[in-house]
């Protein structure tokens, strides 16, 4: 019997593949998945160019690190130029003070080949110094973690699962083609499993590929040595964790939206409710937090996302700090929730009737 079910599941997956992977209506899922990859690539290209530019400037006008260290606030522009030479870029602005006096604000830019060093002069006196490295690996990791948790998981994977899983049943009801499955000696639970695996295959392939490409695009800007050091350190573990979290997100959200597609004629409202619950997660009390998928997914992300420095203090107050779940707890809870939702969906599938005229 098990062999028959497996055969039937494979047949359903094969039939569904075209719809889940190659449907014209599903193109936006690819756009969602590829958007962060494109952003990382554009960023990497920009940073690489900037690095090359700084290195070239440093070669043309070499300045020793000791000279840079000599520059302190309070120096005049002439004194700075005397020590460092002419800047590669300068900008001047004028403004009027409260007493009507005209003041100047001047920026001088230098480089040591790696850092972009900006000197800010107010009325000809060096007011402060700003050193900026175009991008460092820890900074990139933090950006990746934030984008992964706040854009990729909450929006891209979430809506990707909405698009693919809801259509597995609802789309076929609208196309009036679901009855073909119902005319075969296949248990409804087996049909449900087949459709779920078809959706899972599509979302896992699309979104884990996107995660892998984002990872590659993020690292691409760095020198080979930096990348190798990182990967042999925590890099591969982090990479594996991100792929795992992506796949688990598809597993969890997929089951929810498969059930939504079976239960509701209009899935927009339940989808909005789930989105609201997932988005409101930081503000929920600790116990309620643990009922949302994103809590467990974030718990197993390898890097904690950076809090928004510009967040208003009042909103900051509303955020309830909760200890993240352990990896084992998080994975177990997601898998259990998935089984629970699929069991419910299976009951719904058993009662499903083909009545297209009411759709």
């Amino acid at each position, binding site marked *: 019997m098990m062999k*028959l079910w497996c*055969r*039937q599941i494979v*047949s*359903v997956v*094969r*039939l569904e593949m*075209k*719809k889940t992977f190659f449907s014209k209506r599903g193109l936006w899922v690819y756009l969602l998945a590829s958007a962060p990859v494109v952003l990382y690539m554009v960023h990497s290209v920009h940073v690489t160019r900037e690095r090359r530019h700084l290195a070239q400037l440093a070669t043309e006008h070499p300045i020793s690190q000791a000279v840079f260290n000599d520059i302190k606030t309070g120096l005049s522009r002439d004194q700075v130029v005397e020590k460092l030479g002419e800047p590669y870029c300068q900008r001047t602005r004028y403004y009027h003070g409260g007493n009507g006096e005209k003041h100047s604000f001047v920026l001088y830019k230098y480089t040591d080949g790696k850092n972009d060093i900006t000197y800010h002069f107010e009325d000809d006196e060096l007011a402060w110094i700003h050193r900026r490295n175009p991008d460092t690996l820890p900074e990139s990791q933090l950006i990746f973690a934030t984008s992964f948790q706040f854009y990729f998981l909450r929006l891209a994977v979430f809506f990707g699962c909405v698009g693919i899983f809801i259509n597995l049943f609802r789309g076929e009801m609208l*196309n*009036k*083609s679901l*009855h*073909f*499955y*119902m*005319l*075969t*000696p*296949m*248990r*409804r639970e087996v049909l449900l499993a087949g459709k779920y695996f078809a959706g899972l295959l599509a979302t896992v392939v699309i979104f884990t590929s996107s995660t892998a490409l984002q990872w590659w695009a993020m690292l691409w800007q760095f020198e080979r040595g930096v990348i190798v050091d990182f990967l042999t350190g925590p890099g591969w573990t982090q990479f594996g964790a991100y792929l795992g979290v992506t796949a688990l997100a598809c597993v969890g959200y997929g089951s929810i939206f498969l059930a939504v597609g079976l239960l509701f004629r209009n899935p927009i409202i339940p989808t909005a409710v789930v989105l609201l619950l997932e988005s409101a997660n930081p503000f929920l009390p600790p116990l309620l937090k643990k009922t949302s998928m994103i809590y467990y997914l974030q718990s197993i992300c390898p890097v904690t996302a950076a809090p928004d420095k510009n967040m208003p203090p009042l909103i900051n107050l509303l955020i309830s700090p909760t200890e993240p779940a352990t990896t084992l707890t998080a994975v177990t809870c997601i898998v259990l929730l998935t089984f629970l939702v699929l069991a419910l969906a299976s009951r719904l599938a058993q*009662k499903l*009737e*083909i*009545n*297209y005229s*009411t759709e």
Partner: protein
Amino acid sequence: MKNDLITFDNVSRFYGEVLGVNRVTLSLPPGITSLVGPNGAGKTTLMNLVAGLIRPTRGRIRVLGQCPTQSHKLFGLVGYATQFDAFPKGLSGFQFIYSFLRLFGYSNAECKRLANQVIEQVGLSDAAGRKVAGYSKGMRQRIRLAQALAHDPRVLILDEPLNGLDPLVRAETINLFRRYTSEGRHVLVSSHVLHEVDMISDQVVLMSGGYVVAEGQIQSVRSEIQERPVKILIHCKQPSILASKAFEQDHVVEAQLLSEGSGVLIKTRDADRFYRLLNHLALNGIDIEGVTPADDDVNSVYDYLIGNEEKVSS
């Protein structure tokens, strides 16, 4: 209970407050059974109930002893060609049947063999490689028929199966049904083309407004309509003598001579007694060339039973 019957036991189905079928009690033996009725009569609802695509609100259905809601047991026995003119996207005729058979759990080789066989049976071999979306209406009808036949079921349910078919294919399809039922199987068809129903059916189920109005062999149904005299057309050499003899009988209500003088149309309340009279007259010198019942076809029966309702095309 015999296991070769399709039975409905006081079955009702409502769509919210709308009646689909109500209090249907039927027992259908093997053979070609036609469901006849106007749009909204409940024919498709009855078929969907048999196939388990919908569930009865009340009552019980058994198909060869199986409950239709247990699709994994039912669809080894049942093939259903629905009226829904929609197919999984992007598949050719062959792929459609092949994929359908794969869902039954057949092996790859078996699926290919069965798919080719049934596609040939419905005369679509040349078009098997083309996308179903590009098929004509008749071809789509045939590929649906192939899908229903593919796994060689014991019960074939066909919703308006002859719609859109050209006369030659129609005749072939009807022959196919006959071959099928000659092996003791069920063919349950719905149709509103009454002369075809007459031609193909072993029994009919007349439906109107969700109710079964009459069921059985069409002649038996006709004979049960007592309030309508039976019309019998007799071709003979002496129609006026026959008419006068017939009119002496109390059960004969009308005798109408045909305009060309070739016969007489009799209306009688007791067909059996009239046939006995005819035998007697034939033995006593009336030269009878032919006797034809004039209103025991589905059209007439339908007209008598559901005459004031929507008239179906004939």
